[in-house]
């Protein structure tokens, strides 16, 4: 009786008022809330009801899944002692949404001795302040693993510390500049009013002095990075953007100081605004970069820092993972992540490789299987022969690639620098010439400075970054992430798009398409196959079980099943030998398999007690809109290419359906990369669209690597363009957005240049007062920004 008062899903007592009942499979099930009922239906719908038998009644999670032990001595190194408490910074794996944060904070606060716990949503770090007498870091970590999160100690290295320092200093500089510019605006407005309506000279002087006072720190404190950059650029004789900004603001500032002595108009606001606006841009940029580097941190810390090495005499010692060498043997227990790449030497286990491949289902790894660093050992302890030092491991290599990607210069800056190298000497020359031309007249210096003010790089500097910012923002709304402005630019002029098949053009989940029993009903054959396959996590087996769930068939689990990798399954059903697997597998077991291909992707042949029973065909279906998207891309003039590791028949069939002329099958990741490189060498600009990590090298070598994300972590790190929602239509939208942004950027640049083309001669000929020059400059900036904002309205279609 007591059992029925517990919720079927969450196993907690049902409060009398909240009872929800539902009839599923003819059983009256009781739930504590509609959420639990929904969750149960989802789990059942996914064919995973066995979860309820496997889970541990105490905690609700799978037994042993996250049962890792923590080395207290090792954790102690990361504890910072405070006056009468201690602090530890953990990086927590498995945070997916805001409720995770709520849960972690509340679970920790319930623990005795915990004073405060705060999770940083962006970086997935949790800072715990605790009473070192009442609890230990190991206990806290165990608490977190109990609810399914994997904590690791987080330590600041020098690089991160300096990056954080830099961001703070940028924040200070920008805050100061913004505050002072606001003050300055008030004075400037009064002065502009005075210019048109008249103002008494003393008040004017006073306002000018105040303006000078507030502008000085903006130029010399907030603008210091630009002044410094300008100085370096002068010393290296490489004019850059910094020089242009420094020159613009310094000339406006210097001229205004000079103007104060001659009763002329002042332009302190120009000097301050240039610096404030550009600092704001830098701040956005650093925010984006920080988010990206937090991803790298998470990635690197996937591999544990400590491992248990097995010595020649059989004993084991705890060593730093960085000291492991190829050939060493290590022991990895259930619930731990593999510290480095290796081969399983003994034992077998299920491994959660979702962080690496995006495949969310665990895979069985047996002696001889390759293990990738950062993947999670789920079910049993295994000894692993190390094949790569931690620094060369998969995780470290991927992290290295990502870091390289982040330091590459955005085209924004490259273009501005290129322009600056020509533009700056030109402006200085024109200013100088103006001065010499008017030499002898009182306005000579003023005209020369007007040239400098009017040629201020604002519009030019804003032209690209604003467009990139708006476009990436718009893209992110649809779940499309451009890894930087250079990617946006590169996407705009691609010529060829190469697709991976599995998981990209297809859903990556095989479905049953035909059941052909030799005798008896389809249901009987399916049940027979399910009996054998129910113990397997192979995608084909899962597709089969899902079909049974769909047809609402029940099946009996076979006993004593063994998996023969790449062949099939041998099981014992009601005393007879049940075989399920490939045609080759059955023929090897001397069973006569009739000829003829089922015409679909994969087949499971079944034989019971030496007698052939029939075949079930499964197919990995194309994504709904695959054909439409491929057609659309072709209409836009892109050449398409299909690269797959699958067999030629399947590849040909898919290529035919999608009308992709150019296809290659049975490719290794290395061959995919070589094909991409060949296309690049023949002058094509190629985009590679893929999912898992086996495409990573090809993604990296293509002009633009596009990842269709099934996972949100690593697979995505090697891509330039990430489609966070597995919808191919977004690919077409991303390309459209990129093309539009490039058009807008070109318009902006054209406008900024033609403005300079008109304004500089006017200023040089003395036809322009600095006040009009500054106004013209402001208007041109507004035009550029407004034009960029148009990108916000790009529609998905």
């Amino acid at each position, binding site marked *: 009786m007591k059992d029925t008062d517990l919720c079927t899903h969450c196993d907690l007592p049902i409060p009398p008022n909240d009872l929800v009942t539902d009839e599923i499979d003819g059983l009256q099930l009781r739930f504590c809330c509609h959420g639990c009922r929904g969750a149960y239906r989802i789990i059942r719908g996914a064919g995973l009801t066995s979860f309820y038998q496997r889970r541990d009644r105490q905690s609700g999670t799978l037994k042993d899944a996250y049962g890792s032990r923590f080395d207290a001595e090792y954790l102690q190194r990361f504890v910072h002692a405070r006056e009468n408490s201690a602090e530890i910074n953990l990086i927590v794996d498995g945070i997916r949404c805001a409720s995770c*944060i709520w849960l972690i904070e509340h679970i920790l606060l319930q623990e005795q001795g915990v004073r405060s716990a705060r999770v940083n949503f962006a970086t997935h770090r949790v800072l715990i302040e605790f009473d070192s007498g009442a609890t230990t870091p190991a206990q806290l970590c165990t608490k977190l693993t109990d609810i399914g999160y994997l904590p690791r100690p987080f330590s600041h290295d020098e690089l991160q510390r300096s990056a954080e320092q830099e961001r*703070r200093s940028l924040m200070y500089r920008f805050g100061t500049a913004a505050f002072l510019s606001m003050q300055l605006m008030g004075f400037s407005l009064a002065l502009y009013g005075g210019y048109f309506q008249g103002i008494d000279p003393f008040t004017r002087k006073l306002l000018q002095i105040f303006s000078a006072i507030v502008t000085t720190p903006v130029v010399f404190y907030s603008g210091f990075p630009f002044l410094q950059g300008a100085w370096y650029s002068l010393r290296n004789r490489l004019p850059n953007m910094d020089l242009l900004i420094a020159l613009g603001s310094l000339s406006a500032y210097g001229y205004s100081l000079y103007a104060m002595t001659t009763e002329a108009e002042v332009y302190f606001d120009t000097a301050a605004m240039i610096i404030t606006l550009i600092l704001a841009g830098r701040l956005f940029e650093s925010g984006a970069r920080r988010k990206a580097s937090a991803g790298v941190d998470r990635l690197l810390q996937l591999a544990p820092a400590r491992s248990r090495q097995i010595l020649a005499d059989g004993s084991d010692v705890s060593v730093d993972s960085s000291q492991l060498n190829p050939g060493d043997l290590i022991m990895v227990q259930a619930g731990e992540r593999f510290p480095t790449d290796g081969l399983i030497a003994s034992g077998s286990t299920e491994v959660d490789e979702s962080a690496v491949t995006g495949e969310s289902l665990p895979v069985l790894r047996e002696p001889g299987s390759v293990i990738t660093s950062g993947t999670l050992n789920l079910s049993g302890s295994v000894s692993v022969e190390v094949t790569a030092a931690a620094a060369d491991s998969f995780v470290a290599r991927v992290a290295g690639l990502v870091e390289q990607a982040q330091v590459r210069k955005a085209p924004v800056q490259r273009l501005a620098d290129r322009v600056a190298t020509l533009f700056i000497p030109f402006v200085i020359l024109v200013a100088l010439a103006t001065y010499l031309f008017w030499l002898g007249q009182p306005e000579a210096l003023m005209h020369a400075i007007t040239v400098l003010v009017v040629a201020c790089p604002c519009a030019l500097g804003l032209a690209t970054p604003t467009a990139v910012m708006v476009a990436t923002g718009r893209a992110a709304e649809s779940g499309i992430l451009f890894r930087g402005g250079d990617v946006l630019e590169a996407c705009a002029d691609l010529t060829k798009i190469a697709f991976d098949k599995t998981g990209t053009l297809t859903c990556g989940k095989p479905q049953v398409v035909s059941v052909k029993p030799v005798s008896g009903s389809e249901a009987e054959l399916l049940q027979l196959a399910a009996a054998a396959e129910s113990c397997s996590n192979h995608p084909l087996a899962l597709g089969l079980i899902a079909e049974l769930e769909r047809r609402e068939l029940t099946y009996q689990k076979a006993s004593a099943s063994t998996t023969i990798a790449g062949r099939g399954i041998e099981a014992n059903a009601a005393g007879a030998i049940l075989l399920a697997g490939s045609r080759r597998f059955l023929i090897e077991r001397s069973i006569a398999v009739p000829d003829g291909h089922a015409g679909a992707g994969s087949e499971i042949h079944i034989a019971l007690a030496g007698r052939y029973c029939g075949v079930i065909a499964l197919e990995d279906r194309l994504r709904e809109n695959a054909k439409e998207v491929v057609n659309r891309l072709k209409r836009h003039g892109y050449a398409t290419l299909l690269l797959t590791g699958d067999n030629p028949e399947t590849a040909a069939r898919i290529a035919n359906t999608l009308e992709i002329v150019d296809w290659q099958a049975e490719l290794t990741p290395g061959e995919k990369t070589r094909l991409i490189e060949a296309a690049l060498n023949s002058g094509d600009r190629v985009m590679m669209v893929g999912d898992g990590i086996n495409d990573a090298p090809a993604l990296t070598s293509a002009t633009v690597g596009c990842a269709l994300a099934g996972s949100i972590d690593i697979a995505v790190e090697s891509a330039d363009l990430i489609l966070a929602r597995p919808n191919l239509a977004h690919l077409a939208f991303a390309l459209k957005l990129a093309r539009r942004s490039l058009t807008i950027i070109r318009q902006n640049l054209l406008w900024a240049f033609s403005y300079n083309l008109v304004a500089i001669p006017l200023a040089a000929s003395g036809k322009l007062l600095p006040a009009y020059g500054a106004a013209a400059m402001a208007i041109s900036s507004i035009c550029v920004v407004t034009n960029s904002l148009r990108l916000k309205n790009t529609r998905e279609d």
Partner: protein
Amino acid sequence: MLTSILLLIFLSFCIGTGVWLFFLYSVKKGEFDDIEGPKYRMLDDEDDNQQRTDDERNIP
């Protein structure tokens, strides 16, 4: 006239400085380290009992 301008300028400068110092303080305290989280946090109910009584009140 001039006195009032001076007074107002001084006043605005004081208020501005106050806000500026507050900004510097909050950067130092790390208030800007996590600008993603708060928008989710505000939806959390700190007090679960409070939530329950609220729910009950809504039941007719």
